[in-house]
């Protein structure tokens, strides 16, 4: 009787689906009520299912329960307003459209509601970092506390950020219409938010590897929602999905048992996830069916070059440098230029890499970015100038943003010390 849940992300998925559907049915001005209803429903499901086992169709069970809960919350709210008749009338006029029980037993159709919610979260009046927080909160069932943890912000600051964003959202006329004229523009914002979400998981600040993995996974789940839905399944969507799959394929080798980072060249390639690589390549092919080359196409192509190289030595660096050049034209950024310089060093040697690093336009914007001095240190070390390298790594260490980065840089510093102590082994 106590059958297992469909999968370990069941509650996340259901939370996003239910909040989106209830918000569509009740209207965005009832966003908070929809969230309450869903949270209470899921909490009740935990108690009931623990004792009775899962119902035959858990999703349908939750849909019906959440609907009923929403109706009773609405009634309670209206009773509370009985002495303010004008507000009461307003609430009655709006009614609770679509709250009939027949719909509850339909199979979960196209995930339109979630898609519309995703587009709604990326409202131009909501700042980018808040868009990402909103997506996690409304579509992935993260508590404010969990979002705060993922982004290393205080809980109070995150609560404020979320409540501001929700205010913007609930003041809109309704969930975003997928047929709207600004669909394309909004899609770009959605891509950006999911890209940031994935990167926060991949490179992010949280010292907890499990938290970061969760962010990557959610970004991948949401991008596949886009990819499955025709109007949103553009070449850029496929390219972004490809990028995520190819990067995620390296995750098992990227962090070792102790939770420490291993850089690309030292990763054990046999531990890369070959299924994800195949999926990424397939998506990259799908993304080529268009005229436009987006920044995600280029990043995915770079990731594919790494993923498909049989060994670190056989990485096609010239090709990668070209891809970075194209990416720089599309999205000029010092971080992209930094990555390009590292690729140049691999292709043409550490001197040329150092030159490229020093001539990055707007390098001052990298002043707080630990991987700039770390790259300088790496290349100096490769030239056999361990003392110089140590100076750079120390600077990087001061800038490190979390324990993972700190541990990584400490290991590089130890390598510098080793080479300073016995300069002979420093060659090549």
């Amino acid at each position, binding site marked *: 009787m106590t059958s297992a849940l469909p999968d370990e992300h069941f509650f*996340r998925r259901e939370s996003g689906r239910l909040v989106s559907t209830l918000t569509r049915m009740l209207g965005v001005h009832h966003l908070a009520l929809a969230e309450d209803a869903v*949270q209470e429903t899921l909490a009740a499901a935990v*108690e009931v299912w623990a*004792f009775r086992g899962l119902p035959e169709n858990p999703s349908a069970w939750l849909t019906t329960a959440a609907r009923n809960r929403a109706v009773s919350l609405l009634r309670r709210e209206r009773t509370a307003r009985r002495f303010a008749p004008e507000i009461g009338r307003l609430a009655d006029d709006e009614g609770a459209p679509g709250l009939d029980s027949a719909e509850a037993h339909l199979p979960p159709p196209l995930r339109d509601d979630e898609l519309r919610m995703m587009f709604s979260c990326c409202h131009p009046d909501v700042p980018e970092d808040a868009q990402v927080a909103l997506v996690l909160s409304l579509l992935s069932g993260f*508590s404010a506390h969990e979002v705060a943890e993922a982004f290393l912000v205080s809980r109070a600051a995150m609560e404020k950020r979320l409540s501001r964003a929700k205010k913007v959202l609930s003041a809109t006329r309704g969930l975003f219409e997928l047929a709207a004229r600004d669909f394309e523009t909004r899609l770009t914002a959605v891509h950006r938010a999911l890209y940031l979400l994935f990167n926060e998981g991949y490179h992010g600040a949280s010292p907890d590897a499990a938290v970061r993995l969760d962010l990557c996974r959610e970004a991948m789940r949401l991008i596949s929602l886009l990819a499955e839905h025709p109007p949103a399944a553009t070449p850029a969507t496929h390219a972004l999905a490809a990028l995520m799959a190819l990067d995620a394929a390296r995750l098992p080798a990227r962090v070792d048992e102790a939770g420490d980072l291993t850089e690309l060249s030292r990763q054990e390639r046999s531990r890369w996830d070959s299924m994800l690589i195949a999926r990424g390549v397939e998506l990259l092919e799908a993304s080529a069916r268009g005229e436009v080359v987006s920044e995600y196409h280029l990043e995915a192509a770079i990731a594919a070059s790494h993923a498909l190289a049989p060994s670190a030595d056989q990485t096609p660096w010239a090709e990668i440098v070209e891809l970075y050049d194209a990416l720089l034209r599309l999205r000029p950024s010092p971080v992209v230029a930094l990555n390009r310089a590292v690729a140049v060093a691999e292709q043409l040697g550490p001197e040329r890499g150092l030159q490229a690093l020093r001539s990055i336009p707007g390098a001052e914007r990298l002043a707080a970015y630990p991987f700039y001095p770390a790259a300088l240190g790496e290349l100096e070390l490769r030239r056999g100038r361990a003392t110089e390298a140590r100076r750079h790594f120390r600077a990087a260490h001061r800038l490190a943003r979390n324990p993972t980065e700190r541990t990584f840089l400490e290991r590089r510093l130890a390598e510098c010390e080793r080479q300073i102590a016995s300069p002979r082994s420093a060659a090549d």
Partner: protein
Amino acid sequence: MSEFLYLYRQPADSPNLLDSARTMQERLQKWTAWFKDLESRGHLRTMGHPLETSGAVVSESGRTVHDGPYAESKDIVLGYSVVQAKDLAEARTLAGGCPVLGYGGMVEVRPIRQM
């Protein structure tokens, strides 16, 4: 073998009753695993029931004296089960594995009176 009533109690103001999707998923998994374990070791007499957090307390003459599920204590009984154990010591040990303990709650273990 004796029988024991387990009352699962949680402080009424516990913030853990409502939380994120992740913690809810964990909570369900822990409860399911716990019941399964008791059952497989032959300790689960009746799984019992979860209880709503609403209700009333009624006293003499049927007059409602409180709205709410509790008399004086600030704990809500989330549910109950009947467990079979050798003695109170074993029943206490078994209760120590209950997931409610991880969420600020407790298990009240009461031997069922034998005639």
